[in-house]
């Protein structure tokens, strides 16, 4: 077998494995989410299908495959079918670029499906394609609620994509590379990025929630206003594919956060004392960190109410964007003039910024809720209670 063919086959194998792993995670994620939410709301959740409800995802899958696949008469046939496929395609593709271990650590192979020098940039690019699934789905349904929902949600996604891109600039300055492996190795040497970029991480976290359309940013699916947003006219497997895309995006977002800010595939070094070499086990650490962030997604969903649309857009444009720029310039100024003092003062600065933001959140909220344009409504409408700060 020639070398390139072997390489191709191995890549294919890894791709299929990753895709299957993602889909399984998605299936059980739905179950875990329902059980956890039930627990938070003092009820039981699905527990009938199999022990502890463990077969529930299987039942759901079978149901959505055997359901009638409706296509409303006014839909644009081609695009209507294409939209969920695009959504899931982009969602699954994005995950393949994330390294689950150092090069060559997976039975002599690299533990990622593809590796681009652009690293995080390539991932942002693929994520930015995700907006098409939702937009086209809503448009092609040929119905009003989906159209409104998709328009809103595309505006939301592009707005928060900015916050996402800008909030990692400080990180890129510190590392000086966009490749995931370099970012992880930098953290192995200097400590987790979240320490030095706590403000950047907070902004990135919020943007991620908005990018994957999760509570408190799940406006596209605001039942009270838009029925089910872009999903209204979808049923059976196509609906399931959209759902799948959302959850896979969530997993990818968790993986990105873990890789960029929490040391990626490397475990904490202090455990080395107990079990030598434990911090460089491949895959385990990444999976643990992803699980943590997935739990966070569910937790937040069980805790926070939804934003109103105008609050959402204001939050993105008037708070997140300037803050991300400020974080970037803070890091830039620090690196330019005080690099000699080591990295810890920067960590302190960043943390102080974040704490100040939290402490002043009432003040900030009033500030950003105030209309800035001349003659745009009255000046003194009260700050409303918000979903999240």
């Amino acid at each position: 077998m020639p070398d390139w063919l072997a390489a191709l086959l191995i890549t294919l194998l890894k791709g299929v494995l990753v895709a299957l792993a993602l889909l399984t995670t998605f299936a059980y994620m739905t179950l875990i989410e329902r059980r956890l939410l039930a627990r938070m709301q003092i009820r039981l959740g699905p527990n009938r299908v199999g022990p502890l409800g463990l077969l529930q995802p299987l039942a759901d899958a079978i149901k959505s495959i055997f359901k009638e696949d409706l296509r409303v008469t006014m839909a644009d046939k081609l695009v209507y079918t294409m939209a969920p496929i695009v959504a899931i395609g982009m969602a699954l593709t994005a995950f393949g670029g994330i390294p689950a271990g150092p090069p060559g650590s997976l039975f002599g192979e690299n533990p990622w499906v593809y590796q681009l020098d652009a690293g995080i940039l390539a991932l942002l690019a693929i994520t930015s394609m995700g907006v098409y699934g939702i937009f086209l789905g809503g448009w092609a349904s040929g119905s009003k609620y989906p159209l409104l929902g998709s328009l809103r949600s595309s505006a939301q996604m592009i707005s928060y994509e900015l916050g996402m891109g800008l909030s990692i600039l400080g990180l890129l300055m510190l590392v000086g590379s966009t490749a995931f492996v370099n970012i992880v190795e930098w953290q192995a040497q200097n400590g987790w990025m979240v320490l030095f970029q706590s403000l950047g991480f907070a902004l990135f976290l919020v943007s991620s929630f908005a990018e994957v359309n999760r509570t408190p940013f799940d406006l596209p699916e605001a039942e009270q206003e838009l029925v089910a947003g872009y999903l209204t006219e979808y049923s059976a497997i196509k609906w399931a594919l959209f759902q799948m895309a959302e959850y896979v995006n969530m997993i990818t977002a968790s993986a990105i956060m873990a890789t960029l800010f929490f040391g990626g595939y490397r475990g904490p070094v202090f455990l080395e004392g107990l079990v030598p070499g434990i911090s460089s086990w491949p895959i385990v650490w990444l999976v643990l960190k992803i699980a943590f962030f997935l739990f966070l997604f569910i937790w937040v969903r069980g805790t926070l109410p939804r934003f109103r649309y105008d609050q959402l857009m204001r939050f993105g444009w008037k708070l997140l964007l300037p803050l991300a720029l400020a974080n970037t310039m803070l890091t830039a100024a620090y690196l330019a003039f005080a690099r000699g003092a080591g990295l810890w003062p920067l960590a302190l600065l960043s943390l102080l910024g974040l704490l100040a933001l939290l402490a002043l959140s009432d003040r900030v909220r009033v500030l950003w809720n105030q209309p800035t344009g001349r003659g745009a409504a009255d000046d003194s409408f009260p700050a409303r209670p918000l979903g999240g700060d």
Partner: protein
Amino acid sequence: MIAFLLLGALALVGAVVTVAARNAVHAALGLVGTLLSVAGLFASLSASFLAAVQVIVYAGAILVLFLFVIMLLNAHQPVTGRDPVPFVRELAGIGGVILAGALAVIAFSYRDPQPLAQGTAALRGGTAGAVGETLLTRFLLPFEAVSVLLLVAIVGAVALVRRPAPQPDGVTDAEGVALPGELPERTAPEGGVRA
């Protein structure tokens, strides 16, 4: 080489769809396909930064704007009727033939003065770092000029959608952006039907 042929073919298919589609949204989607294929070409030429930016900016931003505008102008339906500009088809045809001829001449007469390896060595793998260094040293002025350009774009975009001032004293002229029906729950009475 196989990747190049494949991506090139995809780009062409997308371009043909863009031109031939009767539905503006389908045309836009064809364009997305072309842009993505071009990004793939960049990536296969190991200009990974350029590829990522191509996707982020062109396919991810500009085409979204196109789609929004198509929505906004309600332009999905094929436009029927005569071209408003006389002879536009003939002129476009002539222009196309000239362009194709020029490209053909270049393609067949161009002799690469540098070997490809030497040409791409300057790119240093086309990573963001290499691009950044060049951008901040050799192309400093254009780089800063871009920010001025973007500033102009912001002002232009806002000015475009401004409504003309309704009254001469112009107190309330700034808010030129109409937002009907943005917030159902603010106008709707309490206790609506919940799903």
